[in-house]
């Protein structure tokens, strides 16, 4: 009898152990998958041009700014950097300008088709950009939006908007409606109540959502490469010059793209988790 009761216990302990190992292995694999390229990028970006091309590789960066300074002084980089910042800033303003009111409406009002609307917001992400790029380029050339910062920002806004809507939706949903109602009974119009009560409470989250929109635009390469020629953003510029540029320039450029994005996303990660929580519901 005792043997019968012991065996399943032992088996389940084994299974648990195996499960633990599987979990650890998966964590390590995913960690390496994400961290190794970043590590190589950082090491090489912080090495001198000679060290980058040398073999064997160094484990620790030499903290040599040779590659980076070469990259910064490379013809066109400053301009591309400026374009990236400009487009990303415009994207940020547009996505919050449109996304936050939509998020507010979703959280506060019941209207017919609300569920469908939320679904459609996400659906916009289902269309692959390459599919849209050609008709979009033609349309942009006709309207004169091609090769302009605002034109590219509009495309990036389309990409960032679903996230802006969902993040601000979860944000506003987290603020009790009674706070707003209390403000109304204390003499506020709807707009005043929003400005004096809801906005101060939502501001950190809105800022996070803005940073996320900025990052999406900052990282986007396809639309940028198709829709701009003279006014290349940094991603499109690097893609274009990838073929002929030396290795250390690629590493320095990659680091210049990845590091700000990483810092931004790390800063706003709390709000992104909140968004997934809501989106999964």
């Amino acid at each position, binding site marked *: 009898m005792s043997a019968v009761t012991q065996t399943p216990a032992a088996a389940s302990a084994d299974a648990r152990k195996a499960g633990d190992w599987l979990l650890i292995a998966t964590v390590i694999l995913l960690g390496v998958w994400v961290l190794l390229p970043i590590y190589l990028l950082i090491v090489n970006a912080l090495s001198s041009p000679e060290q980058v091309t040398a073999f064997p590789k160094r484990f620790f960066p030499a903290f040599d700014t040779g590659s980076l300074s070469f990259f910064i002084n490379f013809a066109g980089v400053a301009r591309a950097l400026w374009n990236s910042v400009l487009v990303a800033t415009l994207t940020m303003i547009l996505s919050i300008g449109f996304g936050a009111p939509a998020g507010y409406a979703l959280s506060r009002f019941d209207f017919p088709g609300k569920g469908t609307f939320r679904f459609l917001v996400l659906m916009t992400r289902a269309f692959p950009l390459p599919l849209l790029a050609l008709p979009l380029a033609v349309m942009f050339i006709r309207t004169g939006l091609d090769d302009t910062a605002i034109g590219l920002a509009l495309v990036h806004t389309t990409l960032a908007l679903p996230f802006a809507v969902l993040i601000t939706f979860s944000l506003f949903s987290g603020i*009790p409606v009674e706070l707003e*109602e*209390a403000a*109304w*009974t*204390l*003499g*506020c*119009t709807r707009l005043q109540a929003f400005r004096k*009560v809801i906005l101060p409470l939502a501001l950190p989250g809105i800022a996070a959502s803005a940073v996320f929109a900025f990052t999406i635009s900052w990282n986007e390469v396809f639309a940028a490469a198709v829709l701009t020629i003279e006014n290349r953003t940094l991603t499109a510029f690097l893609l274009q010059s990838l073929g002929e540029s030396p290795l250390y320039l690629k590493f320095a450029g990659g680091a210049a793209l990845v590091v700000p994005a990483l810092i931004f996303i790390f800063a706003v990660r709390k709000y992104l988790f909140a968004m997934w929580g809501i989106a999964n519901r």
Partner: protein
Amino acid sequence: MAEIAIKGVAKRFGGFTALHQVNLAIADQEFMVLLGASGCGKTTLLRIVAGLETPSQGEVWIGGRRVDHLPPRERGIAMVFQNYAVFPHLTVFENIAFGLRMKKLPQADVERRVNRTAELMHIEQLLKRYSGQLSGGQRQRVAVARALAMEPDVILMDEPLSNLDALLRLEMRAELKGVLAASKTTTIYVTHDQVEAMSLADRIAVMHQGRIVQAASPVEVYRNPAARFVGSFIGNPPMNFIPATKAGNGSWSVAGLTLPGPKSDKQKIEFAIRPEDVDAGSEGLHATVRVIEPLGPHTLVTCDVEGGLFRAILESNASVKVGEQLRLAPKPDRVRWFDPETTNAL
């Protein structure tokens, strides 16, 4: 002067009717309690008066002015919410001052009124704190102070004590009553707690399934319930109901007893009596004791009468035993009769 008149107010949410044609007149400075189980429409009615909900039909008048088309800020009301709704990004001082600043009062007036109401609610020492640093009871005080500082014509309270623990609730209840009486405002207070309603109200409006069943003074509501629901909802334990059959013109046979009652064409009506309004004696309703619960000041005895449960509150020195046959004599002036079809009092 701010009397309130609710005239034929109805509210429908889609196919669900939350309020059926409610009429209620509340006098100036009256303390009116809306009492009912959850989902009876009491909060909806309060929110319609506040302007947070629009009625599907009907009119709301405050101080002789029709307000049902006005936004909350133009109605001369202040509201205390169940979850307090203290603004977390403002200090207690700024919370209380919020409405006064919206009125664009001079700074000196704002400070004077905030300090006065804070003193009234005993929160002077908390003025620099934020809502996150306050206990539930303190938040409740801030919410009430914020409403009082507005010096409104009408204060609306939506279950303001239900989130507090029992002891604090008792303390706040007495305090609220004093403060609101002194403020001379008209008050509408929503609660599902009958003890709260009885102890606070000038008048209680008992609501059931979107209708006001009875609006009367607490004693009247307790002694003379207008409908069976009021008798069964108010009082702990509730009123006892026993079927009565016609025994003659104006006399009814109830559980082995013949009692004088209302003249009616019906063959069957309902006899009702409060648990404390019976005495154990040699004559009365035939009852079999099931459960005895000594409660200190008195003893609650649950019996079988005519196959139904009957609760009687007897003196604590009454010597009764489980299984014993009792005769429970109802006090003649406390007997009530109900029509079983309409459930209204006869």
